[in-house]
């Protein structure tokens, strides 16, 4: 059953800004990564899910309830971590926690205390005197204090040091294991890679691709770079090979190609007929995948092409 549904949502701010026909759905207990460069439309989509903005077209719902019309109702089950660390003025951390607890009608503060302990946050100071990291931790505590079933996290680890980032990732994994539904928006590959089951990549307001994280990791496609001993060997290989060779570098006597595991034997038989300087596998990661989309100059088609061949 999908807990979060985004169907063909369009919001046009003009000048090419906004989100266009964005669709995805997140099932119960699933961690969904929302990856894209700054300004790609991640926050805009989340803003619509939270009911801050009204879509020009399309529908968004959480738990089957409309994100705009039932905005307040939905929040019972949602923990939201805003991307911006802007807190109400003139409050200490404790006052802010108290405010959020009252607003959520929480009386039992044990979980809040646990969270404060887990993230080692000192909440007694005035918020404006806190460091970026402490503010982020404070936001985390208030987002999770009511033990929500759905987590919507906008750039959750920016501003945290590596130790806290790791602790946060562990926390998210624990939440996930408890069956929480998670939407995590980020431009940091590692945290999405580490936590998410499925990843949508958004660029210029358009979702360009949705991939299963496991699919990517267990891809049977392998890419290799080969340098031949001489130009003759290079020539000979190219003329006789049955593989398609997308990248040829005659000056260096190099080629890049990709093949499936089944073709591995054939590939080495071919190579045995020529002299080779070296052969290296090009590891494919989410980061590589993402970088193709990150580069605004490249078209969406080029990115998908690269995904197919896993080449650079």
């Amino acid at each position: 059953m999908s807990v979060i549904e985004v169907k063909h949502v369009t919001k046009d701010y003009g000048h090419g800004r906004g989100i266009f026909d964005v669709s995805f759905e997140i099932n119960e207990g699933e961690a969904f990564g929302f990856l894209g460069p700054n300004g790609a439309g991640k926050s805009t989509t989340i803003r619509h899910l939270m009911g801050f903005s009204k879509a020009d077209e399309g529908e968004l719902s959480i738990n089957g309830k409309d994100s705009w019309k039932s905005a307040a109702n939905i929040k019972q089950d949602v923990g939201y971590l805003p991307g911006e660390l802007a807190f109400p003025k003139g409050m200490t951390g404790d006052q802010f926690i108290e405010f959020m607890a009252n607003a959520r009608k929480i009386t039992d503060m044990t979980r809040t205390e646990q969270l404060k302990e887990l993230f080692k946050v000192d909440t007694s100071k005035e918020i404006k005197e806190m460091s970026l990291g402490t503010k982020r931790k404070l936001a985390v505590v208030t987002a999770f204090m009511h033990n929500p079933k759905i987590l919507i996290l906008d750039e959750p680890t920016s501003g945290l040091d590596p130790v806290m980032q790791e602790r946060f990732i562990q926390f998210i994994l624990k939440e996930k294991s408890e069956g929480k539904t998670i939407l995590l928006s980020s431009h940091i590959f590692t945290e999405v890679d580490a936590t998410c089951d499925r990843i949508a990549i958004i660029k210029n307001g358009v979702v360009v691709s949705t991939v299963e994280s496991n699919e990517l990791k267990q891809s049977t496609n392998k890419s290799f770079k080969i340098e031949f001993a001489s130009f003759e060997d290079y020539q000979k290989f190219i003329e006789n090979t049955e593989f398609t060779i997308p990248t040829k570098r005659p000056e260096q006597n190099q080629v890049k190609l990709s093949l499936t595991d089944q073709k591995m034997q054939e590939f080495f038989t071919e190579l045995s007929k020529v002299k080779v300087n070296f052969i290296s596998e090009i590891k494919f990661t989410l980061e590589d995948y993402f970088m193709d989309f990150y580069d605004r100059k490249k078209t969406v088609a080029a990115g998908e092409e690269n995904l197919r061949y896993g080449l650079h």
Partner: protein
Amino acid sequence: MFSKPIFKQSIKTNWKLWAIITIIASVILSGFIIGYDAEGYASIAAAAKGTAFSSLLSSMDSLLGNLENFYKLIGLILGIVYVVFTANTLVVSEVDSGSMAYTLSTPIKRSSVIFTKSLYLILSVILMYVIVSLAGLGASQLKYNNVTGYPITEDIEKASETLDKSEGYLSEHLYLIKDNEQAMRDAAEARDMDLDAYSIYLGEVIKDHSYEEAAKIITDERRDIYEDDDDMEDDDIEITTEELIKNPAMILASNDALKAGASVQGISVNEYRQFLADEITALKAEKNEENKGKSQPTVMITKANRELLLQAVIDSSAKALNMNSAQVKDNLTLIKDPTALEASMKATDLNKKQIITMANHAMVSSARSVDAALEFDTETYFWLSLGLLILILAISSVSFFASTLFNRSGLALAIGGGIPFAFFLLTMVQQLMDDAPVILKYLTITTLFDTDAILASGEFGWGLVALGTIAFVLYAASNVIFTKKDLPL
């Protein structure tokens, strides 16, 4: 609809500015009241009669009139400062900075958020002006005792020392001064009068007080009688002191009124009856006198020539006494000096009795005008205070509207603060310039709070209704807009 956490948070973020403005406004209003110089303004106003300043000073001849500049300018600008910045902090600055996202990530509805914030602004403004008004009321009561009782003037202060009675008690039992020769002398001196003039003055004051008390009782009695009579308006039922002065016979019809009046005079009911009978006869005689006219003196004193004659008497007295006219004017008893009298009689052809009466009359009427200036009309004060409150509420609705309409704090401040400040500047120009263009009146909503009309008991109600309507409409619109708008959070 109402959200307690939001309300508490609004208080936490805004109470400091609220407290500062409330204290400043209270102190300034109290200062206006305590610092009011009744005698000073009375003499300045008299001196400025017919000059360009007269219109500026005309309102200052009473304690409440003197407050007009507070209600029109200082009270207004302080209120504007509070509402402009508070309206900005409450909504748009939270939207612009993004902190509204935290509030809206809880199950509190947008409509509750904006409703609670409107309510905070409205209630805080109301509380502010209630406190300020009470401070003014307290200051006036402490300084002049004129809110709950009769004003304490210098003669009462002096006599209270002589008689060893409290000022408040003495102000309600003025006959005690009359009964004590030493007290009379001290009191007369305190008011710059001789014994003659002062005893006329005191007699008049006591008489008016007795009529005032009687008027209250008669009005109460009539209220009981006409309670269910729909034809009788409040104004018809009410009997004022002025009506009794013209027709004292009405008191004779009510035993309670007689008792009240007699107790003010410090005499028995029967004596008071006699006193009233004498008054009625005197009033009739006065009327007849006017009709018949007396031909004995060479020069007649009429309303028209009274001031000119008085000036002539003052000038000739000053000459005879080797002083300047201003000195004599400040101390009119000097006219009664034999040398001065002689000179005045020669200069004006008035007889001795006429001049002395004239001097007494001048002293008494100047003292009575000072008393009148110190009177505290609770009803007028209430309307001035309520009017300012409604005006500030209307202005706050403009700022609040701007705060919900715009998403950028700076823009909201420019519009939501610029409009109220423009209103203030227009009001200031009108208030300080005698020949301000009439069109300015129509460019600012402050005109709807007509202090002149309130002070003159004129028609001012519709202006306040209009201001209230502006406030209601803009607050309602703000609530609708905020519930429906896209928030850039």
